[in-house]
């Protein structure tokens, strides 16, 4: 946590102070820049004939003297989270950065890797994998899409060896996950620069370009100066445990019924969008096939599952669940085709799996996010498939 003795709520207040400091530093940069411009425009001149042999080098030296120092300090202190070291201010960071950091800390490649969206955040990967005498890591990320699934499976497979490799990758999937920006936010740009090499090429370029923009910025330098001048100890703390899973989120207090209804009402629109009936994105389908091909080459099993949906969602929406089931079947056909062609692929549709979907607030915190008990039920439902997938991987 922050160590800022004068502030009782250091995190929030420091952020505000940092914003003011950044504004101040921008003004300082601007003022210095304008002075240099005035010097260039209005400064004295020498007579013709002065040696200009080194003019270009001197000019480049001027640029590098500033950019060199700032680049080194930005790399070391990593104020904007371009790299996975020296992470700070974890509240503002995307799960991609935090989990990348955690993944890099692992001594060996985990046997079971869970990929997905916020729905999968609570999966206790290590604890669950231990039941099969294996290791596990929860690499689910905020607003996960096929770009994440491709990047992270590519990463885990590329970093593995014949002996030390993941055996099973469990992927939460819905049709819109195949559209890289279905939730309108290009979350993939939050991957650290070390992970860009594992991304699909066009997304890698976009991510690098974003990093370049946030890296060489006055605000980044300001953050370094702010932190160092006040000796603020930003921690490498994170809101995930070492296996990437979030802390347990137990069932909501029944007294807080209003809170549940509010959450339900706050998420049904997003879920409704996620359950659309549109044709899956062709680019996303290609990436899906690439994941499958990669896993085939490396003899790794893939378990895809369609996550459960809270039945109360249909009540709020006043829609027939059958409507969504038709959409689910359409997407399921695609997944079953892939499963049929590839012996290492397993697919389970849990969207209307009764023991889960009828659980209401005992298993869900809103229309589709499970609480810890719900997550345990989900893992139980997946157990036979994961067991089969492990057996398949072992047989290879």
């Amino acid at each position, binding site marked *: 946590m922050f160590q800022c003795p004068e502030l009782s709520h250091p995190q929030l207040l420091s952020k505000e102070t940092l914003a003011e400091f950044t504004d101040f530093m921008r*003004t300082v940069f601007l003022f210095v820049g*304008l002075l240099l411009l*005035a010097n*260039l425009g209005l400064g004295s001149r*020498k007579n*013709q004939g002065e040696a200009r042999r080194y003019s270009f080098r*001197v*000019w480049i*030296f001027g640029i590098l003297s500033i950019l060199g120092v700032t680049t080194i300090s930005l790399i070391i202190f990593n104020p904007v989270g371009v790299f996975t070291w020296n992470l700070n201010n974890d509240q503002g960071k995307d799960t991609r950065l935090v989990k990348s950091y955690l993944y890099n800390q692992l001594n060996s490649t985990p046997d079971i890797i869970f990929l997905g969206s916020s729905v999968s955040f609570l999966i206790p990967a290590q604890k669950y994998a231990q039941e099969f005498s294996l290791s596990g890591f929860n690499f689910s990320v905020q607003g996960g899409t096929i770009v994440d699934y491709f990047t992270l499976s590519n990463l885990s497979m590329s970093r593995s060896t014949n002996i030390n490799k993941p055996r099973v990758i469990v992927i939460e999937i819905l049709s819109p996950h195949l559209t890289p920006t279905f939730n309108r936010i290009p979350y993939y740009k939050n991957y650290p620069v070390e992970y860009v090499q594992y991304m699909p090429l066009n997304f890698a370029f976009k991510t690098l370009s974003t990093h370049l923009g946030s890296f060489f910025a006055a605000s980044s330098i300001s953050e370094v100066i702010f932190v160092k001048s006040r000796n603020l100890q930003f921690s490498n703390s994170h809101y995930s445990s070492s296996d990437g899973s979030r802390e347990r989120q137990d069932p909501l207090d029944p007294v807080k019924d209003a809170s549940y209804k509010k959450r339900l009402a706050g998420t049904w629109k997003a879920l409704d969008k996620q359950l659309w009936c549109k044709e899956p994105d062709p680019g996303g389908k290609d990436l899906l096939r690439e994941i499958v091909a990669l896993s085939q080459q490396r003899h790794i099993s893939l378990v895809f599952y369609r996550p459960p949906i809270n039945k109360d969602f249909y009540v709020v929406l006043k829609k027939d669940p059958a409507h969504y089931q038709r959409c689910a079947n359409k997407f399921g056909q695609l997944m079953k085709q892939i499963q049929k062609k590839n012996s290492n692929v397993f697919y389970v549709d849990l969207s209307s799996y009764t023991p889960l979907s009828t659980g209401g607030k005992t298993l869900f915190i809103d229309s589709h996010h499970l609480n810890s008990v719900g997550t345990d039920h989900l893992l139980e439902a997946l157990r036979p498939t994961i067991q089969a997938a492990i057996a398949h991987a072992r047989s290879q």
Partner: protein
Amino acid sequence: MSFTNYAFLLLFLPLTFWAYYKLFKTPRGKLYCLLAVSYGFYALAGWQFVPVLLALSLLTFFLARKEWFWPGIILNLGALALFKYWDFGVENLNALVRLLGHSFALNLLSLGLPLGISFFVFKHISYLLDLKARRYPASTDLFLFLVFSAYFPQISAGPISNFKDTSAQLLQLPERLEKDQQVSGIVHLSMGMAKKVLIADQIGILINTSFGKPTYFAGILPAWYMLIAYALQLYFDFSGYTDMALGISALFGVKLPPNFNNPYLASNIAEFWERWHISLSSWFRIYLFAPLSRFFLRKGGPQNREWGQYTANFITMSLVGLWHGASWMYVLWGIYHGLLLSLHAAWKRAGRQFPSWVGRPLLILSILFGWAIFMSPNSDFLAHLFASLFGIAGWGNPAVIRTLVRNNATLAILAGVLLAFSGHSEAASLFKSGTSIPLWQLFSAGVMVAICILLVGHVQNFIYAGF
């Protein structure tokens, strides 16, 4: 892709210079390099419009070879009309049809605007008109013409150069750059970037966020603040771009024509147009105003010479206004300048002259009123702005005035005013007096560029690249 984009400054430009000087040793090789890089630059800005640029360049080249000048001109103008003015025309036509009580409506095309179309189309037209007037022969070198047409330092927003001057240089691209050209290039580039990032964009951040807030334009103090700020933003944005374009081009060994010469130091409106966007005003003077004046002189005879000139002024300036964008406000701005130029011509013809202490402030005021029209998105905004400028809306909201004064834009405005009226606001003016730039100033120019790169995150697009 913009000149102030990180990818351009830190990757595209250094790699291009490296390839240009290290991989290509002959002038022809360098020409091919410039062709590839120019099309690469254009593709990065919007790959879908590459066929438009290529097709128009090829057609212009081959039509010129066949001496089919008018089809070439019509084709280029047609493309400009289609991409830039079609939707504007359709909207107005539909409004007129609705006014007449009919329900018929044409569809908008919403094609988008290819980067720099107003500039490369004008280069093509000047080429065709020059050939028609037998000023020089048609080029037989397709690659040379394609580079002239797509040359990346000037594709986004000019300056509009003519084929004869540019092609002569493109055929003799130097193997190594002379030191003088090198210094000229880096000083132009540094100063252009500083004008854009440190002045224009600091003001731009304020102006862009203020358009949705009526209080920022209400009251005499905020209104004058914003108008002066806009006048400086527009000037430093465009002259900053131009200096960068001239600097980058100089580093390839190609000298482009200047676009600005301290315009706010002009002593009258005619001189202002000789100092502001010089390549465009020269284009219109040579290819439109002069032929129009001759036409009216022929038709009206010497006794109506003045009226012929006034009419030519109005037509030329209206089209200058329309060139800036598909909006009636730009046309109105053009007409306003046509009126100013005609009044100036009449005043001069009558042998009258203002003393400079009256003339200069009057000119600045006239230009500022012109920018009020130029900046207004519609006539309602303009009416409110003028009401505020003349004090009808009071002094202004004190909270807004405080916010404006404390804004970084105020610092940029002060520096902008100092520079604009110093006579040294163009990089070219630093090389005029037979002196050279000392090494320590080149070092500080480098530091200044580094600071600009750090502040680039807040950079706005170049205003003229949108015209």
